[in-house]
């Protein structure tokens, strides 16, 4: 599954917030998008899903295996979301409906796209809970979001995203709201799941240290423009653009938190 974005321009409230971004995510790639606040990275994610907020519009091209997503009808887009593109969004505190049990939410995508019956939903939820290594999957599916920790909730969100084995896993700052230890655990989970499922990963973050761990190719966004792209190793070793250099410096400045012994992934 190849995701090709060409000349993506997003206008929001009269301003151009993403200005001509191009990138290609080849089949099975681990692609990172990095940029600071307001660089347009989250809007790019929403544009791929066709879920731009009201008042924002996108032009250009976003193609999934040659099928154009921009301007696609809402009903067809809804079939692609969840089934071919799995999504994990930023904040695990708010990503789950507080009134529904973990099990119902885990099974929701599968139920929605007709992959499991009402009766099979619980088994599916338990399967997904163990897939993302939630403790006591049989019991946790009966709990509510407020009874889980932030890291556990993010695992639930990841489980929902992976429910239908999507070809592309789109994640927007999935570890930003987590503490460092939990962040490392969730990253190793991504590592393992992407390797197991063979999905392409599009990982959006502001933290280069995280990308260095999870992705191979990186695109650097700044103020809505792509300023640099290439293999993550090269960017770390020899950043060409000042923005990239700034990100590298920032990552190095905080890297003592991650420079201890590598956690057992």
């Amino acid at each position, binding site marked *: 599954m190849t995701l090709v974005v060409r000349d993506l321009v997003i206008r929001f409230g009269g301003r151009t917030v993403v200005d001509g971004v191009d990138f290609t995510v080849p089949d099975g790639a681990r692609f990172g998008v990095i940029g600071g606040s307001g660089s347009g990275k989250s809007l790019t994610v929403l544009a791929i899903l066709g879920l731009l907020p009201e008042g924002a519009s996108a032009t250009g091209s976003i193609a999934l295996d040659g099928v154009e997503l921009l301007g696609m009808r809402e009903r067809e887009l809804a079939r692609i979301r969840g089934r071919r593109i799995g999504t994990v969004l930023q904040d695990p505190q708010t990503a789950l409906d507080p*009134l529904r049990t973990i099990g119902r939410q885990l099974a929701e995508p599968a139920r929605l796209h007709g992959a499991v019956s009402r009766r099979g939903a619980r088994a599916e939820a338990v399967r997904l809970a163990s897939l993302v290594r939630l403790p006591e999957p049989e019991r946790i599916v009966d*709990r509510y979001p407020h009874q889980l*920790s932030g890291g556990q909730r993010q695992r639930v969100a990841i489980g929902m995203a992976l429910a239908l084995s999507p070809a592309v896993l789109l994640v927007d700052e999935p570890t930003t709201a987590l503490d460092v230890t939990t962040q490392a655990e969730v990253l190793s989970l991504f590592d393992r799941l992407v390797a197991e499922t063979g999905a392409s990963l599009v990982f959006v973050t502001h933290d280069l240290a995280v990308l260095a761990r999870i992705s191979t190719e990186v695109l650097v966004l700044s103020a809505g423009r792509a300023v640099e792209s290439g293999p993550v190793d090269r960017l770390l070793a020899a950043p060409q653009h000042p923005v990239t250099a700034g990100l590298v410096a920032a990552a190095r400045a905080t890297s003592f938190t991650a420079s201890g012994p590598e956690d057992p992934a």
Partner: protein
Amino acid sequence: MSAAWPRELLRRPGGVLGVVVLAVLIVSAVVATFWTPQDPFATDPFHRWQGPSGAHLLGTDGVGRDVFSYVFAASRTALLVAVLSSLVAGVVGVVLAAVGALGPRWLREPVAVLIDVLIAFPVLLIAIMLSAVLGPSLTEVVVAVGIGFGVNIARVARGEIRRVARSGYVLAARAAGLGPGRVLTDHLLPNIAPVLIVQLSLSAGVAVLSEAGLSFLGYGAPPSTPSWGRLLGDLQNYVTIYPLTAVWPGLAITVSVLACNLFGDALREATDPRLRTGRRERRRVR
């Protein structure tokens, strides 16, 4: 919403009181449809203004009607108006709120303005206007409270829907492929339900109060329909002489309205898993 909510409801004192009073109201309304101790409209000029006795549990009024039978029979009117008004108010409120929050852009602003304009009209004023046109009836009370309180619900619910629609889980649900209709029924309505429940129970209380008030003024229940408010109106000239008689319909109104509010509050707490404080739940947290 899980199946545990009835137990949660009965764990709260307000919930118990609300449930008991509403149950009494419902039972008496059902029984009164078929049977009352005496004919609530039968007058008896030889037994006027009697105090409570074996024959007349709550005494008799100025034309010798049995007050207990009348109050008993009027519970049916109160319950009918409360239920129907809340139903109308709920539908009016949710539809207006959904259109005002999620509808096409060109429609939202007009709906918001419409809500604000209608809120300016008090329920009683709408009812008196309708009554002037259509003549006093319970239908007019139901329509007036339904619209009058419906716009109140709409204003609150619109804000709530907009708040929930911006939340992470709605975006996550959309990203999982849920359509706008399913998002409304599966995520938005359940999450604004606590607010709706309180508003609906308030509207039931307001309906009982409005029906009583309108009937008191002669704009509500026609003379052929027993009503607490109408009885109060009949008794008001003599309240300084026979205060006890007027206590009964007044008590019925007060207790019913209070029960509606207590029930709503307790139900809201019981249906929201975040507000539960049961021992079992607490132990299960990690």
